[in-house]
């Protein structure tokens, strides 16, 4: 069995309970979501559609949720802004729940450790 030195064990436990940087996670999520919808929209606009056919009619249905969004160059910017806000919100929830769950477990471990080390005597 490959026994671990103490600092290595501590490093594994530290990694397991490491917190996500919420602000960094939110910004990264927002940036990626914005880039995704922006690129997707621009790709459809550049590709175009046969004469008489609308460009990206299915993606354009996002306007139900994102008022003002269209499959146009301007719409790509509007959509990116909406997607960024939506992605950032999702990122915030994910990072916050992750950190909260770990804090909760860590708190339980601390309480159990404290109770285990107190003697009734």
């Amino acid at each position, binding site marked *: *069995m*490959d*026994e*671990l030195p*103490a600092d*290595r*064990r*501590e*490093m*594994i*436990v*530290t*990694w*397991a*309970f*490491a*917190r*996500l*940087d919420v*602000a*960094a*996670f939110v*910004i*990264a*999520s927002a*940036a*990626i979501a914005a*880039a*995704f919808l922006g690129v*997707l929209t621009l*790709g*459809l606009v550049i*590709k175009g559609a046969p004469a008489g056919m609308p460009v*990206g009619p*299915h993606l354009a*249905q996002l306007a*139900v*949720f994102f008022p003002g969004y269209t499959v146009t160059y301007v719409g790509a910017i509007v959509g990116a802004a909406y997607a960024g806000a939506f992605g950032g919100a*999702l990122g915030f*929830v*994910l990072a916050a*729940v*992750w950190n909260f*769950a*770990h804090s909760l*477990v*860590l708190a339980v471990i*601390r309480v159990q*450790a*404290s109770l*285990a*080390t*107190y*003697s009734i*005597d």
Partner: protein
Amino acid sequence: MERVSPIDDGTELDGISARDLLSSTLRFNTLIFGVILGVFAGASLLALALIASATDRFGHLAVVLIGVFLPGYSADGQGALIGFLWGFVFGAALGGVIYRINSLRVLSQLEQLVVAQPPADGFRGAVLRLHGPSLGTAIGAVGAVGLIATTNLLVARGTAGASPRARLLAEVLPGYSVSPVGSIIGAIGLFVVLYLFCQAFVAIYNSLAGWRKRG
């Protein structure tokens, strides 16, 4: 009454192997990540079905298409609840798989994956760093396998021709078609796209987290 912090007591963990310790921490984190993704996926399907049931403008076709893969999922209250359950099951499973693939090489990258902070109450706090290639491989692989599985399920059921929404993927995944060969070509493209987006996400996150730590 004497109090000793067992967290600081290195002898308590004597005899624990790297595999044992890593396995138990991975189980815990896999559970958390799976539950989070399960709730996300379930809530998304629930919301989509409820929106589709409340409006004629959006979601009906998407719900019908998803309902091909998730029996019972439909644009009404009961279908939405069934969708939540399906979403939770699939989301949790996918979350578990993604987390496990992402963590395959943790032991060899441990020092790169945490930004240590000053100890508090016996615990050394840390900010998690992400590993782009691992995350990209995990999410890319899950997406690619998912695309192959769903496409070929449509082909096997004989409903491929009646799935115009599936064919729309060819607009953004060159070479994709609702056929076995098309699914593999599309899966390769999807893997590349997801991998690149994950790399970008990790680069932004790690840069900001490191910058904030230094600041």
